[in-house]
Structure formats: structure tokens, C-alpha cells
């Protein structure tokens, strides 16, 4: 069953220096599965993710011949309908909890505001639900975390709070935009396995955005490789090693291997015609 279908998505920024196209005709569809989007900085992967939520700030513009989420036409939806979708059915975890959590609000207030404001829950019920959500991301002592400010949390802890916050309404689709890139290597695995477990248990669709092709290969069912705003290759994660496109091969080969040769790593080829 298709959860999200995107056809010919374009994101354009009208700047004084002319039009800049961040995403140029991206198409994909997604069921309740894990889709990885991989590419370098500036390849348009983040913009693709945010377009689904229609959260591109002006002067950015989103265009698509089709962008449908579970029967709702996202291109035609009113801002009000989009807000309802954002709060309840599509969620997003961003890169760095240091910036994505409000620095002057207590964690508890940030976790419960959706429940209280939209679902009209009592303070007590919302609090209980938020503590449950914190327990689900394996935070011990959730009562203390509720009273903390974001800067008092470590990166891994902050990202767990973020995941808990986004999963409270039980969304159907989660967009994870480099969810572990800002974390220490030692906590990356932990946060990933928490994310993995929750997405699997609740059967949601996942768009996992990363620059780390191997990570995405392990974590997802399917991978889109983006280059300069276009999809250059789409393949099953298990077939990653048989990638055909030279850019994908380049991404695979630019990582060092433990115990491998110490020769300089090959640079990444960037042929202009791939962007056509």
C-alpha cells in the first residue's frame, strides 16, 4: 500500500542572483517501509524531506505534479490541513538536538504542548503520556528529564527526547534527517537502534536521510541516491554493492576500511552530465 507518492518534485529559491533549484524533479513512492535518501551536502535530500511537510521557508517554492500522502493531496491542502497532518501523521527528527529543541523551554513543556493544546489533555494526563514516551526511548529517570532544559542534556539524550516528542502522536510517517550525524560515534548506534525498534514496532513508514551510504544500506529497505537535486540511482539496499551508477560507486569507495590499504582515498567524481 502506498503511503506517500511524490512525482516530479521541485524546490526553487528565487534569489537576487537568479533562480536556484535545490530539488529538480524527484519522484519516489513509499509504503510502510524504510526509504533511505543519500547524497552529499547540497544534493537536495533535506529539502526533499521538508517538502513533504511543506516546511520550506520563503523565498523557497515547492512544485510537484503529484505529492499525495495517504489520499491527501499535499499540494492542494490548506495550511490548516497541513498543520493537522504535521502534528499527527507526519513527523520529523532533525540533525542536532542542540538547535532543534527550544533552548528556553523545559523538556516537559515541549513534550506536552501538542497533547495539551491540540488534544486538550489535562496537564496530568499529558505529563503521564510524555513520561511514557521518554521511557519508550529508554531514558531512565524521565521525571528529571521533564524538568531539565535542553542544554542540560547530552547530545544522545537530546536526540532521544526529540524522537520521543515526534513519536508521541504515533505518526504514520517519520522523516529522520541525519538523526545521528551530530552525535558521538558511541551514542550513534544506541540512538539508531532505539529509532529502529520504534519504527519497526509501530509499523510506520520512514524516510531516512543521510550522507552515510553504508549506514543507510544497513538500516533501510530501499535507497535513493541524490546528486545536485536529482535522483541518480534507486536500488534495493541489499543490492547496494552492485550499484551501477559511478556516483554511487564513488560514495561507496570514499570511506576508509579498518585494516584496509592506507593509500589515499579516491576523490569523489562529479561529472556534470549526471546532473542532467
Amino acid at each position, binding site marked *: 500500500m502506498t503511503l506517500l507518492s511524490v512525482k516530479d518534485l521541485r524546490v526553487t529559491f528565487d534569489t537576487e542572483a537568479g533562480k536556484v533549484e535545490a530539488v529538480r524533479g524527484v519522484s519516489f513512492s513509499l509504503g510502510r517501509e524504510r526509504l533511505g535518501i543519500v547524497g552529499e551536502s547540497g544534493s537536495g535530500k533535506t529539502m526533499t524531506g*521538508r517538502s513533504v*511537510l511543506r*516546511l520550506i*521557508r520563503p523565498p523557497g517554492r515547492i512544485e510537484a505534479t503529484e505529492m499525495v500522502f495517504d489520499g491527501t493531496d499535499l499540494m492542494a491542502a490548506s495550511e490548516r490541513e497541513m*498543520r*493537522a*497532518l*504535521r*502534528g*499527527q501523521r507526519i*513527523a*520529523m527528527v*532533525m540533525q*542536532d538536538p542542540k*538547535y*532543534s*529543541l*527550544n*533552548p*528556553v*523551554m*523545559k523538556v516537559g513543556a515541549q513534550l506536552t*504542548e*501538542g497533547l495539551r*493544546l*491540540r488534544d486538550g489533555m489535562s496537564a496530568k494526563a499529558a505529563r503521564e503520556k510524555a513520561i511514557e514516551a521518554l521511557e519508550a526511548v529508554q*531514558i*531512565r*529517570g524521565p521525571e*528529571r*528529564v521533564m*524538568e*531539565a*532544559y535542553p*542544554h*542540560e*542534556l*547530552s*547530545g*544522545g*539524550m537530546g536526540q*532521544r527526547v*526529540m524522537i520521543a*516528542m*515526534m513519536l508521541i502522536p504515533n505518526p504514520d510517517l517519520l522523516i529522520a534527517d541525519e538523526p545521528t550525524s551530530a552525535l558521538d560515534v558511541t*551514542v550513534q548506534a*544506541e540512538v539508531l537502534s532505539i529509532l529502529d525498534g520504534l519504527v519497526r514496532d509501530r509499523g510506520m513508514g520512514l524516510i531516512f536521510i543521510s550522507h552515510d551510504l553504508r549506514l543507510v544500506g544497513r538500516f533501510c529497505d530501499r535507497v535513493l541516491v541524490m546528486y545536485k537535486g536529482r535522483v541518480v540511482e534507486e536500488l534495493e539496499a541489499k543490492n547496494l554493492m552492485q550499484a551501477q551508477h559511478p556516483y554511487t560507486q564513488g560514495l561507496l569507495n570514499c570511506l576508509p576500511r579498518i585494516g584496509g590499504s592506507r593509500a589515499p582515498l579516491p576523490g569523489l567524481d562529479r561529472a556534470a552530465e549526471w546532473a542532467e
Partner: protein
Amino acid sequence: MTASPDTPAPPPGSLSGLPRVLRLIGGTSLSLAITILGLLLVTFIIGRVVPIDPVLAIVGERATTAQYEATRLALGLDEPMWKQFAIYVGNAVQGDLGQSLRTKREVSADIIRYFPATLELATLATLFGVLVGVPAGVLAATRPGTWVDQVVRIVGLMGYSMPVFWLGLLALLVFYGILGWVGGPGRLDAGFSMMFELDVQQRTGMILIDTALAGEWAMFRNAISHIILPSAVLGYTSMAYISRMTRSFMMNELGQEYITTARVKGMPEWRVVWVHALKNVMVPLITVIALSYAYLLEGSVLTETIFAWPGLGSYITDALFAADMPAVLGGTVVVGVVFVTLNMASDLLYRLVDPRAR
């Protein structure tokens, strides 16, 4: 700070955070004391280097040498400099700023009479500046480039560039002279003025508060009609400044990632702007507001002159024209203390609003 993943630092406001708050207040008071001592040193030196002979200013030009010498000794001017300074500081700490040559009263007594008028005016003006300036800045920041933004910008630019004496005269002409909507110069109509001095218990020296406490509502309304124009004129300038700063702080916050988070959560736009972003805007804005308040508390000479407002600004100016050095320096010390204290207060408030600074 980094904590291990499962042990967050104790939240601020808990008991373990208390000594830190006390230390903070202690440190602040200490630096306050040092700053004020420095200020006293400066006014002391100014008092000694200006080419006005303090003895001659008191005894007059026709005094005999014996009279002159007696006054000189009475003022302690034969003591060594360091001792003179120590006496000066000791007196100032006890609230003794010397005697005014012009009014023949204690400078501190004079200031207690004049300062409430300035305090009342500056507070109302700042209130106006904040209540209009902050929303205007927020509206402009959320609608950049639209007519709303343009209006806020142009109105603000006028507040910046129009001289306050001209604006004050214009306002008096239109709203008092032509339309007659408000009271004229002074704090009260002449009749009420006498009544206030004689009948109303002056608890604070601020007419609005004293008349309200005494239940003198007719007098209260009259005071409002007098203060509304000068406070609006003063508040306009501070509104212009506050709205511009608010706009730029808000634009900055709206580009932050936590704003996207709030939107992802489906929060309505009003909540994103007026709660999530504004809470962060308040952090730098507190300093801006405190500075503009402190600036108004120094007494705005021009506004006070035009509106015949018996405030600190006009007191110091009059003293200056009369070469009344004790009054000038005493007024300067008070202004300095007010300024420094407000700065410290904004520092403390800043830490209250921003949990990262605690």
C-alpha cells in the same frame, strides 16, 4: 555541559542550584559597589578641577578673608586630597551629597523631590515603548517586505530622526493647543497642584500613585491628562528603538531550527511566533529595554523643559546654569547609580529568562 546519557544535571531551581543564585547576587552587588566607588571618584575629581571656587560660591565675592578662611576650614578643604575623598564617599554613602547653593537645601532632599517626576514619566514612556514596540517589531518580522513591515519601519525611522523638542512642541500645539484633548505643561493644573502639595499624603512623590492611594480620582485623572503627552513623546523614541531591535531579533529566531520543530509538531503560527520565538527574543531584548529605560531615567532635559516637567533632567540643568556644583555632581551621582543599578538588574533578569546563563 555534558552529562552521561542517562543522568541529566539537576534542574535549575532545585535546592542544589540555590547557592549559585546567592553567589550571583553577591558578585553582582560587589561589582555594583566598585562601579559606584569609581563613579564617586570621577565626580570628586570633577568637583576639584572645575574653575569654580566652592568657598567663593558660598561666601560670595564681598566676604572678608577671615570669613573665607573659616568656610574653607568648615568644608574640610585644608585636609589632604585622599582624606577629602574619604569624607566625600562616607557622606555620599549616608545619603549626604552636600548642600545646593541655589536652593539652599540638601541636594539629596532636592533629588527626592525631583526624581519621582522623572521616574513616573520614564516608567510610563518605557511601558508605552514596550507595549507598542514589541508587538510592532514582531508583526514586522513575521511579514517582512509587506506594508505592515514598511509602516513599522517608517514610523520607527521617524521616531529616530525627529528631534524630541520639535515633536514635543508639535504634540503640545495639536493635542493641547488646538484639540484641547490633554492637559498642558506641568504635572497638574495649577489648582490641583496646590491641593496635591497640601492635601495629599505624598508616599512616593509620584502623583499617579499618590492620588490613587488617596482616592483623589479627579486629581488622578488630571495628572493622567498631563503626563500622557510627554510620556507618549518620550515613549515614541524608545518604541522606535525597541521595535527595530525586536524585529531583527525575531527574524533571527524565526530562522532557527527549533522553530521548524514547533511547526513539525503542528503548532499554530501564533504559538510558534508568540511563544516559542518570543521567549527567546526576550533574552536579548531585556538588555535593550533596560538600557532605554535607564536612558529615560537620567531625565530627558529637552522633554522636561518643553513640558515644564520638574524632573531630574531640568534640576541638573538649572543647577548647571547657576554654577551650583554640589547639585550638579549630586545629580550626576544619582543618575549614575540609577544607570548602574538598572544594568545589574537587567543582568540578573537576563539570567532568569535564559536558563543557559544561570
